[in-house]
């Protein structure tokens, strides 16, 4: 028996954890070490650290803070990874999986050499999507590739059995009560939904609250769902994972299979 993963995305700039809208409007949530420790205590299935400081450097300071405080929770990192030495160092520091942005698809030979050297399971390919003016048209955020090009390259990788886990992000999500996220996830292109090994991030807590049926459908299609700052909304809104994701946890609870993790 397996469980779908419910993880947390932790955005950061230098050593600060952030709440953000569209990766742009930012509010500090405090030091990464406290945020990482908080998430580990919630027993999220995985912590995914995304550095959004805008530099082309890996944020090793933040990675170190995460690893020191994640208490045996699987950790992934994304942001500024451009060469194999950085990948190697991140793995040596204790990062389990490395997130690569869609621009890496422009140089598939680099991607293949990474996969060959470190294993496909060490990488997650991040596809941040924007819906344009609320229409059913999508664009890859902050990237020169079009969605069609991204899909074509992904299908090619799939044909060659070289496709890692794909992380689809709703970039425009703004957290609680955002109806936009429901539209986004219900109308996402089917060619993307057909890909294997997918994880979803962005506005999922809102979706679970506003449209539980759509959320359950989404959960069936994805291997994992990740939430962001919904897990940091202050003590009055602290949620546990069972509340967040009853679709996943309800059937498992009856047989109590997760008792081993408590």
């Amino acid at each position, binding site marked *: *028996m*397996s*469980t*779908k*993963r419910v993880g947390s995305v932790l955005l950061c700039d230098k050593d600060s954890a952030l709440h953000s809208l569209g990766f742009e409007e930012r509010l500090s949530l405090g030091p990464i070490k406290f945020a990482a420790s908080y998430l*580990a205590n919630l*027993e999220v*299935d995985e912590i995914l650290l995304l550095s959004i400081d805008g530099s082309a450097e890996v944020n090793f300071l933040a990675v170190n803070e995460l690893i020191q405080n994640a*208490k*045996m*929770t*699987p950790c992934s990192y994304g942001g500024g990874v451009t060469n194999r030495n950085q990948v190697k160092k991140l793995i040596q520091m204790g990062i*389990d*999986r490395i997130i690569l942005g869609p621009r890496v698809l422009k140089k598939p030979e680099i991607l293949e050499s990474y996969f*060959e050297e470190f*294993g*496909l*399971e060490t990488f997650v390919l991040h596809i941040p999507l924007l819906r344009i003016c609320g229409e059913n048209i999508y664009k890859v955020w902050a990237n020169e590739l079009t969605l069609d090009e991204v899909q074509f390259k992904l299908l090619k990788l799939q044909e060659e*059995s070289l496709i*890692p*886990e794909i992380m689809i992000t709703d970039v425009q999500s703004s957290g609680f009560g955002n109806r936009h996220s429901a539209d986004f996830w219900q109308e996402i292109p089917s060619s993307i939904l057909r890909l*294997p*090994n997918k994880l979803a991030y962005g506005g999922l807590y809102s979706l679970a609250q506003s449209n539980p049926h759509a959320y359950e459908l989404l959960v069936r299609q994805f*291997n*994992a769902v990740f939430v962001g700052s919904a897990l940091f909304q202050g003590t009055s809104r602290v949620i546990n994972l069972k509340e967040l994701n009853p679709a996943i946890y309800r059937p498992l609870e009856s047989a109590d*299979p*997760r008792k*081993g*993790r*408590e």
Partner: protein
Amino acid sequence: MRTQRKSGKPVLGICLGFQLLFDSSKEGSGSVPTKGLGLFSETVEPIYSNFEMKTGWYQVKRQIMPLGGDFYYFNHRFGVKRMNNENVVSVCADGVIAEVRKDNIRGVQFHPEKSQHAGRRYLRGFIEDWS
């Protein structure tokens, strides 16, 4: 490794460390399997026919206690399936071997160091077995 094995000191192979204990692996080796340490006789192969990955939390069932088991974190594409001998300690529901043991050598396909409370319990048990 072989010296360590003869010395009787405990060894724990994790994930790729588990796979290296076997005869050979088909990972990244083209048509000729890569030679392993040969402490167990099976070959490491893709676990699913479509090369899908096994990433996440999976329940592991001990052979001697089939009615339950802890959840551990797995992240792999290659592994060992259906190994019927006394060295198998635990398996997943999909038939993937989760843990093997022979004398002082133990191997686990999952990551106890990333499996929160269950992992901590596993590692504590490993240390206590040998202390």
